[in-house]
């Protein structure tokens, strides 16, 4: 019996953390906020196998599983990496594999693994989040409409979108009638946009109207990855607060020696560690027991969001005034955690989805306008 990361997974974790930490010092992060992904960083990650992790070896990937994807997502969160990871390396590969035809997999997975194609993702329509606006309509071989909150938009060569709740379509960035309106998000390490479509050609992933199950899996995968990202960021915030509390002296003693701070840090880690176990388990069952996917991804997202918010706020608080400036850069982690909390469904929304999954209650009818 073994619960936790294998040696290989730990090696992957170390490699990635090192790669990201070396390239993403605070100055770089501040300088590149709101900018597209640094091509050199992207190349390095591709070489480490980040984009091919979930792609079978036959298509140029390394055929790993969701626990490895979790390890990568956690490392991204640790370094608040400005990288279009979620869409490109997780959701697009899963979409083509779960819903695509063999021919489509052949054609699309290779360029993902090689880092050539990069995906923005728009799942807002199915994420059950409040204020759902935007709707994509398909007529013949053209698409119309708008998709809100497309993640990783500025780096994308392709966009993966849902339509009618049961169809997945892919749009090329340069296609006819595509417009991208960038949003100003509190989190500047990733890009968010409203995508406009006007008589835009598209490719359906698999058959139209048959992707409902795949969409459920994508949503679960996305929520799980956001949980891991938040977890990674929260762990950093906790340990930076711990370190700071030992260095910072007030009243002739390290502030970490005051129980007010000490017990707060104890509460933070008491929340954090079981959450790590839950996220690992949720990643494990994603592959091992697909029937448990949705429940565990929802709970992982909910718990990570709640403890992440608590830890992020407390870490800033322990850092005092300096935590509130941009000097220490803590705000980047804080804001990433705040944004993750809301993406693909806030805590109440994902808990509601967990209740629906267990048959406790009916889903809220989505009305797109």
């Amino acid at each position, binding site marked *: 019996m073994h619960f936790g990361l294998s040696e290989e997974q730990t090696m992957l974790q170390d490699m990635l953390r090192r790669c990201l930490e070396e390239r993403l010092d605070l100055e770089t992060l501040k300088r590149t906020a709101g900018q597209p992904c640094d091509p050199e960083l992207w190349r390095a990650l591709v070489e480490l196998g980040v984009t091919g992790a979930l792609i079978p070896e036959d298509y140029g990937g390394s055929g790993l599983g969701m626990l490895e994807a979790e390890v990568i997502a956690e490392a991204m969160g640790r370094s608040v990496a400005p990288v279009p990871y979620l869409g490109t390396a997780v959701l697009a590969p899963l979409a083509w594999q779960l819903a695509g035809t063999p021919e489509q997999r052949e054609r699309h997975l290779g360029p993902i693994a090689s880092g050539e194609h990069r995906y923005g993702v728009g799942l807002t329509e199915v994420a059950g989040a409040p204020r759902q606006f935007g709707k994509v309509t398909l007529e013949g071989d053209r698409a119309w409409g708008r998709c809100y909150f497309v993640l990783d938009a500025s780096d994308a060569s392709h966009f993966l979108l849902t339509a009618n709740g049961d169809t997945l379509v892919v749009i090329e960035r340069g296609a006819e009638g595509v417009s991208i309106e960038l949003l100003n998000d509190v989190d500047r390490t990733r890009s968010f946009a409203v995508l406009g479509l006007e008589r835009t050609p598209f490719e359906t992933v698999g058959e139209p109207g048959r992707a409902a199950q795949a969409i459920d899996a994508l949503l679960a995968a996305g929520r799980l990855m956001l949980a891991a990202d938040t977890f990674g960021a929260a762990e950093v915030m906790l340990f930076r607060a711990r370190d700071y509390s030992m260095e910072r002296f007030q009243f002739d003693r390290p502030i970490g020696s005051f129980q007010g701070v000490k017990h707060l840090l104890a509460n933070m880690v008491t929340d954090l560690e079981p959450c790590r176990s839950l996220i690992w388990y949720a990643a494990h069952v994603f592959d091992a027991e697909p029937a448990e996917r949705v429940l565990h991804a929802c709970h992982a997202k909910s718990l990570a969001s709640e403890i992440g918010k608590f830890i992020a706020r407390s870490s800033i608080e322990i850092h*005092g005034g300096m935590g509130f400036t941009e000097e220490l850069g803590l705000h980047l982690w804080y804001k990433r955690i705040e944004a993750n909390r809301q993406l693909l469904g806030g805590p109440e929304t994902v808990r509601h989805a967990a209740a629906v999954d267990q048959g406790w209650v009916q889903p809220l009818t989505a009305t797109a306008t």
Partner: protein
Amino acid sequence: MDLSYGPEYDDFRAEVREFCRNHRPAEHRSRGIPGVTERPSPEVLAWQAKLIEHGYAARTIPREYGGYGAKPDIIENRIIQEEFLAAGLPLGLSNQGISMLVPTLLEVGTAEQCTTYIRPTIYGEMIWCQGYSEPGAGSDLASLRTRAELDGDEWIINGQKIWTSSAHVADMCFILVRTEPEAPKHHGISYLLMPMDRPGIDVRPLVTMTGDATFNEVFLADVRIPAKNIVGARGQGWHVANVTLKYERGMLGNAGQGQSGIKGLVELLQEETAGSARAMDLDHYRDRLLKLQGRTLANKYHGMRLLSQSINGEQTGVEGLITKLSATELAYDIYSLAVDVLGETGTLYDGSPYQAERDWQKSLLGCFTGIIGGGSANIQRNIIAERGLGLPREPRVRFDSGRWELSPSASNKGGN
């Protein structure tokens, strides 16, 4: 209970209301946020002068220093606030010079200092910044290291200050410096008045997590100011500063923002939807709203209770110490709910397309000013527990090379 101000104030209210009727809000649209990022505009200065003339600003400042010279009357102040708010008129200037320095000078300044500084300050012509905090001295203000030495008839100041809001526009700085390095921590500090145009002062903006540069760092290298620019006696600066801090605590502990937050939340929950449901119809959002409404009402009436104590000259106990802690936690929870209800839209920021009418996310970030500034939450808890509940003071111990020892200089009395 009697929640009216009594008929004796009817005339005064009528007078204020009349003034408000004669001054339409539109006239004052150009008003910035003086004292934070820019100097007051000519329009604002003119408005301030008019307010002082009528006694609606600087009301209790003696006439000899340029004020209106009225007797202090809390209810009159309250009526002015209420009527201006109802009419949508801006109140008089509020900045650290007016709210902190002026009362301090009136209490411990010399007549010459009062004459020199109060008039231009209340008229908005002289802008002040506060030189208290240092990188190593936040909650533990008394451990500050910026020092001043007397050289003939001048102080020479060296050191560094931080969190100095409006330092980049200020004419003057009221600053705490260590003048007796041999004296115990609290006893070696003096309170000086430093012109900001002196050589050796370097002001650098400090960008906060909201993205704004409302604070500064101020570096001081051999800054020379006149010896007479000291308030109170040499070495008595800690006492003088505490007079001022008292006023700052009063400023930050404003429960009023909760009211407006709840109003905005109610509208938000009535407008926003999750799928086909109004957010207001989702019990979990609504229940959170109601909890916050209850706390907001409690804080509102609590403010009335404190006002009443103050009007009636009653002693205020622990109930007066808790307001800041209570109000900051409440504000954080209110803005958090709004962001949650907005879902992904709640992450939009600072005038993004598709953002909700109010920038809830920015309000949420702004809460940290209250959580951290003006005495952090944990410092507040110590004050409440020690002064309010009579619990023992913290032991004054030093942590040195991995060992604990008693602080040699500090009093280790635990009582209050």
